[in-house]
């Protein structure tokens, strides 16, 4: 309980500046939802709805990767990590707190998008929970990638640019906003290597927008879980509470 409390207040410390700056929150929301807007304008609601599911999954992924900046700035700029190392605060609370701060910052945009999605395409509770779960797995994977970036970067510009470039590669290029079937055949297996493809496919399936076989569903979940585990292992390898 003590550790959860620590994590909550560390999360608040990290996210409160964002929550106090509505423009940043609007920007965070816009990044993943902008393609949906254009799809709606040019292709109509039919095409925009699956893209909205993709945007929900991605908005969590984008904020998850934002942990890279939190890790970097709290270590090298604010020196907040050093303050906490020399205190009884646990490193796990710190790590969890920074991850939590991304969720806190994303919560207004997420709440709004889920409301829009559920109003446009009502689904059962189990399907809804499955979409939440797949979104959280995607978020967790991106949080771990963010940690690795934040821990290994010693340059302010890179701490800002690498997550954005990776966000583009993992978010906008793979079939998240558009159907997998639109990709040429030889690129489809390549797209399946990207975790956001699996996350978007599963979320669209649970919203009843695309059909998936049992094997595809199982592979999707297994791939997501495996990717999270791999990123977690990489983070644990790189993470340092006390400097070497």
């Amino acid at each position, binding site marked *: 309980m*003590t550790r959860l*409390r*620590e994590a909550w*207040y*560390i999360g*608040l*410390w990290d996210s*409160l*500046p*964002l929550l*106090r*700056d509505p423009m940043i929150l609007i920007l965070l929301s816009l990044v993943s939802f902008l393609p949906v807007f254009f799809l709606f304008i040019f292709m109509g609601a039919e095409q925009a709805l699956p893209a909205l599911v993709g945007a929900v999954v991605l908005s969590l992924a984008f904020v998850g990767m934002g942990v890279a900046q939190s890790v970097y700035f709290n270590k090298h*700029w*604010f*020196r*907040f990590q*050093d*303050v*906490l*190392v*020399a*205190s*009884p*605060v646990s490193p796990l609370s710190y790590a969890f707190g920074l991850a939590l701060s991304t969720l806190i910052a994303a919560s207004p945009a997420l709440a709004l998008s889920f409301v829009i999605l559920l109003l446009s395409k009502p689904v059962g509770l189990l399907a809804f929970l499955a979409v939440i779960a797949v979104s959280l797995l995607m978020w967790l994977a991106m949080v771990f990638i963010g940690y690795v970036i934040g821990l290994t970067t010693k340059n302010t510009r890179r701490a800002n640019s690498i997550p954005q470039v990776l966000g583009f590669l993992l978010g906008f290029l793979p079939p998240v906003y558009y159907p997998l079937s639109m990709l040429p055949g030889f690129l489809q297996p390549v797209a399946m290597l990207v975790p956001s493809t699996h996350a978007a496919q599963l979320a669209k399936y649970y919203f009843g927008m695309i059909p998936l076989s049992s094997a595809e569903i199982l592979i999707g979940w297994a791939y997501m879980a495996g990717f999270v585990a791999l990123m977690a292992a990489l983070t644990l390898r790189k993470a340092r509470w*006390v*400097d*070497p």
Partner: protein
Amino acid sequence: MDVIEVAGLGKTYPGGTEALKDVSFRVAKGEVFCLLGRNGAGKTTLLRVLATQLRPTAGRATVFGQEVVGGAKAIRQRIAVLPQEARPQMMLSAFDHVRLMCLIRGMSRADAARRTEQVLRQFDLWEHKDKLCADLSGGLRQRVLLCMALIADPDLLFLDEPTIGLDPMGRRQVWAAVRRLTETGVTVLLTTHYMDEAEKLANRLAIIEKGRLTFLGTVDEAKAKAGVGMRLIVEAPGGNGNSREVLHPSSNEEILRVVERAIREGLKVTFQPPSLEEAFIHIVGGSIDDEAS
């Protein structure tokens, strides 16, 4: 028992840079111990090792009888740190900073609010409590960071250049706070570039040069070691400084003779006590000369 015991401590960074070499000293309870040295001398490395933020690679260091590596958990219950070049969050207020730190360190909401008010008032920040740090001056921001370190009532406080960027009043407030803390038995280890600060605060000091301890003792001992004594400046009253004579008397009799001569000839005599800065330059300069030869 000494609060800090360091014996043969060494630190070589993974890249091969040797930041500390065979450093040994002790710090007693309630002492203000200053680490002096040029930029990159190893002061911050030493402070960070003792504050359990950095692993040493040689020798031994204990804080409250606990090894800094094996006993870090116990040490962290009793210390607080103000890191060098720490910065506040610009979109948080002074009150947010201190209160959130209280809550992170496990205080109840009521205790956190009470402690926050107490510390902010102590540093004359209460009137600025609701201002965002973006709207505070550099000195006030530094005070906010100091308040964050002090909320924990630590037994040992590490201050890495705590008064950098503060105006003279702000510096004096920090000095007064440090003195108040030591009166209650708190031990303070601080690094500084300001020699007047070390002179005013330090019970003992260590001068570090290129990772080695080149001096350990009191301020007076540092001046004595460097051979820096009283200076007398003799000049004509209202003179432009061209006829200025700087004397280094070696005895009281010599001082008396200079004063008598000045009275006789109607000259102005200025007594310039030895400064730590001169001693520091002598000691550090000496160590550079030693290395060159």
